[in-house]
């Protein structure tokens, strides 16, 4: 009985984090992007600098009509937002927040599960694109599939590098095995992982599948109301997931300058929001990559870099 109670409590905590952290990151994006562009951003919802803007947006989306195009494949059209969103929820279940088992489910193959479920996101993209009966959505979806399939490889290779370094696939185990000098050793892998992660969540400069100026909104052009909100939530949840994974795999997770186990969760959150800030920063600073540039960067820069990192990790691992 206590085992079930603890399990339910952990899952509820992970679900709560899944619903709140993306809102915080979304709010951070609204304000940081606004000030980087000389604007104020949200100022009214919530009265103090618009802290409740994302909640107001949620209420707005709930009120909107959910329109399904006449020629759309209705069941696939309706399931696509859920398929896009659920993988990130599953990642939240295995992301460790702090030491001493502060994780919903400390799987021994946590990293393997993370890479597998993140790969499912491409299915949601293709479902939305194909079922929309819209040529621009289809173009966006096919672009998204090409991008996700391409960047999956450096994503997995860089993760394999840090897993080899730690000698385990367990995410808490990787944090336990982490050493500060890994910041130098695994720096290329961290760079590859972060960039490939940006492409996985289709954030600028890797937002070719969305491409407002060319494809309206890419694969979710035809989505309105709550389904559109799900795609938006998937985007922000993706930021939290990529930031969390980068923190856990390459930045030492809950490890801070002071060895105080009580504030491990705080260190994890600080690092996650710092990486999320970098994601937002990159969005404001760089234009969108063209399709050929995007694929070229993946196969000619990231993949060789990840492979070289694997070789380096293997050599250092054998030497020590």
């Amino acid at each position, binding site marked *: 009985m206590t085992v079930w109670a603890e399990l339910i409590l952990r899952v509820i905590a992970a679900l709560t984090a899944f619903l709140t952290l993306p809102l915080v990151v979304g709010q951070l994006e609204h304000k940081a992007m606004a000030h980087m562009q000389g604007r104020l951003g949200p100022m009214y919802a919530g009265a103090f600098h618009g802290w409740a803007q994302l909640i107001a947006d949620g209420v707005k989306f709930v009120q909107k009509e959910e329109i399904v195009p006449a020629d759309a494949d209705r069941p696939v059209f309706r399931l696509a937002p859920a398929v896009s969103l659920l993988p990130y929820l599953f990642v939240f279940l295995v992301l460790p927040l702090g030491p001493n088992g502060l994780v919903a489910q400390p799987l021994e193959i946590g990293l393997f599960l993370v890479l597998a479920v993140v790969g499912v996101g491409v299915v949601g993209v293709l479902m939305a694109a194909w079922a929309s009966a819209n040529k621009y959505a289809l173009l966006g979806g096919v672009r998204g599939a090409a991008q996700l399939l391409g960047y999956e490889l450096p994503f997995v290779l860089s993760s394999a590098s840090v897993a080899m370094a730690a000698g385990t696939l367990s995410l808490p185990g990787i944090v336990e095995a982490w050493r500060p000098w890994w910041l130098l050793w695994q720096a290329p892998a961290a760079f590859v992982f972060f960039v490939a992660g940006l492409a996985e969540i289709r954030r600028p400069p890797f937002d070719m599948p969305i491409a407002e100026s060319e494809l309206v909104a890419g694969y979710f052009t035809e989505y309105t109301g709550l389904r559109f909100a799900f795609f938006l939530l998937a985007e922000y949840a993706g930021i939290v997931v990529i930031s969390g994974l980068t923190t856990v795999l390459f930045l030492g997770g809950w490890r801070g300058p002071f060895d105080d186990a009580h504030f491990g969760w705080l260190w994890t959150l600080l690092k996650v929001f710092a990486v999320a800030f970098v994601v937002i920063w990159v969005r404001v*600073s760089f234009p969108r990559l063209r399709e050929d540039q995007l694929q070229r960067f993946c196969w000619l820069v990231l993949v060789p870099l990840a492979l070289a990192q694997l070789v380096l990790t293997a050599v250092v691992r054998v030497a020590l």
Partner: protein
Amino acid sequence: MGIPGGGLAKGLAVTLRNLSRRAHTHQYPDHKPDLPPRSRGVIALLEENCTVCMLCARECPDWCIYIDSHKETVETPGAARARQRNMLDRFAIDFSLCMWCGICIEVCPFDALYWSPEFEFAEYDIRDLLHESDRLREWMWTVPPPPAHDPLGEPAKEVVAADRALAAQRAADAARDEADQIRGEF
């Protein structure tokens, strides 16, 4: 061609610098705008100064000033015959036609028209933009006092003339004192 990735780093630095700066945006209407002293908001009428000379109405390029008047006979004691004065009956400005050029204010020789910085007089009906003299008078209370002279500007002609006269007076006094002193020695 500099370091590879130098342009990317420069872009990131620019956006970070912009983040550290305060946005120039003011949240109107919560934050009232800081208007300069000579803002052209709405035209105010000082009715007592108006002599119905019709210069403003005539010079207005949009013909949006409407003036009506009648003549009254004023009996002055000791005068050979009675005098006639123009009495103002109506003074209206149609702000739906006005283009805020300010010619009427410049051309008025009796300072009856002023610029008020108030600009929030939008109406739901365009006919309500015709401001009669009572409403133009209400704007008069919002006219700011004239701004102070520029400390580095050219001094006023009156001040220059007064200073010059004072200097001449002092020179004459000095000369007379010197003559008295010489006469006293002898």
